[in-house]
């Protein structure tokens, strides 16, 4: 057991009595999954956090060495199960990069539409659970949670009519996508995102002039620009700390270059900055989906349509690291292939793993209530943390 007393980095000058060590354990309403933080308290102030993870370690990387390139994408969607589309995206991109498979234009556009819809759905869940964690402060615990899940259901209906599944899809395959959008889907999609656009303004009005919300998020859990890069956090956390880096803009993949969208950046680096970045990302995602739907080219949806047997995709020897801008940050898949139908080694770069590793560095010094707010703003998903 880590003896916390001698390894605490932030030493508060505390002349008071002993410290209370407490479990914010695996089963905790605001744990966002199975995360155990052994919190050392002095009264209300947190002195040290020892994060214990691994409660959802499902041997993804070892299993990926036993599953072929056609089998693994649907398992890949179980790493970041809140944004299943972007998880599969990374694996498939890496396999295509090694095998130099050409992905038809329509498939690239479909992938962009689906990834941005997934970002909207994932951010809705983030906003809902975060506001529920800070529940009492926002007047009624589950108000915003129920609203956000109501909107998220609309997006899940779109996915259900497109892929047939609500949460985990096998939509991506090496060389393109597995399904094409049914007719009438595009129109339904436009209506849904228009509705969500108006609802997002509602939520902003509800939150941004709520004194409790501002008091609990501004100045809480600040991450400096240097610390952000040093620990390797990504996505909204990085852009919340002032680093203007978005993989869709800096390293465009899957024809993201054809769409114009702006990358929201805040400099404060606290929970409120991350909140502003994600709310702006809602609107950018809606804009991208609209543009992609308008300019969706015709054509095939996969360059390897006749995928009959499972082990049909053989990838030549080589290695590649493909990165995708997931809702939580950079999701990457580093594949080393040895020419057979299964990868030799597959490393999954989960955005939440690095994002979570910053908690023990920024939480000491905050109150116990702030721990919940900070963890909500980091928005970890434990399929991606524990892999």
């Amino acid at each position, binding site marked *: 057991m*880590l003896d916390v007393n001698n*390894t605490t980095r932030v030493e508060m000058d505390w002349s008071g009595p002993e410290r209370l060590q407490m479990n914010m354990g695996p089963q905790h309403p605001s744990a966002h999954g199975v995360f155990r933080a052994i919190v050392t308290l002095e009264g209300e102030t947190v002195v040290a956090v020892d994060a214990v*993870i*691994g409660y959802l*370690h499902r*041997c993804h*990387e*070892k*299993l990926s*060495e*036993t599953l072929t390139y056609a089998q693994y994408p649907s398992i890949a969607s179980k790493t970041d199960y809140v944004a299943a589309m972007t998880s599969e995206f990374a694996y498939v991109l890496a396999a295509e990069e090694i095998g130099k498979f050409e992905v038809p234009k329509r498939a690239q556009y479909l992938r962009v539409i689906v990834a941005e819809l997934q970002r909207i759905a994932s951010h809705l869940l983030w906003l809902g659970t975060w506001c529920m964690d800070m529940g009492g402060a926002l007047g009624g615990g589950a108000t915003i949670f129920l609203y956000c899940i109501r909107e998220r259901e609309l997006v899940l209906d779109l996915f259900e009519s497109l892929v047939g599944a609500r949460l985990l899809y096998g939509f991506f395959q090496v060389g393109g996508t597995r399904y094409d959008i049914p007719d009438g889907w595009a129109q339904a999609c436009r209506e849904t995102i228009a509705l969500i656009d108006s609802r997002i303004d509602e939520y902003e009005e509800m939150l941004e002039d709520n004194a409790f919300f501002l008091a609990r998020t501004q100045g809480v859990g600040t991450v400096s620009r*240097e*610390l952000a*890069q*040093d*620990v*390797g956090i990504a996505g909204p956390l990085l852009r919340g700390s002032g*680093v203007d*880096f978005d993989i869709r803009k*800096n*390293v465009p993949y899957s024809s993201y270059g054809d769409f114009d969208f702006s990358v929201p950046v805040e400099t404060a680096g606290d929970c409120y900055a991350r909140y502003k970045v994600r709310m702006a990302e809602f609107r950018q995602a809606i804009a991208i989906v609209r543009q992609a739907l308008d300019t969706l080219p015709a054509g095939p949806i996969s360059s390897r349509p006749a995928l009959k047997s499972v082990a049909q995709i053989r990838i030549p020897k080589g290695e590649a*690291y493909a990165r995708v801008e997931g809702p939580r940050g*950079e999701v*990457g898949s*580093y594949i*080393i292939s040895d020419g057979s139908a299964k990868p*030799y*080694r597959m*490393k999954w*770069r989960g955005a939440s*793993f*690095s994002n979570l*590793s910053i908690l023990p*560095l920024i939480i000491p010094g905050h109150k116990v209530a702030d721990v919940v707010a900070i963890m909500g703003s980091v928005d970890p998903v434990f399929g991606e943390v*524990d*892999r």
Partner: protein
Amino acid sequence: MNAEQARASLASTFGVEVAAGVPLVVTVAPERWEALARYAKDTVGCRFFNFLTAVDWKEQGLEVVARVDNLDENVALMLKTKLGPGVTRCASLTPVYRGANWMERECFDMFGIRFDGHPDMRRILLEDTWEGHPLLKSYAVDTPHPPYR
């Protein structure tokens, strides 16, 4: 420092041939591992620590791979070092990048590589009582674990 300059300076200072390409792959001997990381962070300007992992090449032993990025000039460096057969010790990058803390603990958990200079070298994903390191090629996928087999 953009990609070409980085490639040239890395090749000159470390005397290794760096192939062109999006991630500049730099392979060095294990003892120069921390020096390479410090060089990447200070001179090449790769302050963003992407990830660190290891690969088990069966007989040729383990290889530690780290990826760092310079976000402003879009320079990506893939730092590699082969530990040689049977060697399970490696220099730790935590003094250079604080993000390496958890990544190295995971490498120890999965491959058994002990990183010297790491403040808190214990398993991160599996329980501390777990025996064996799962991601080694010698470890079968569904090795039974007593109570819940």
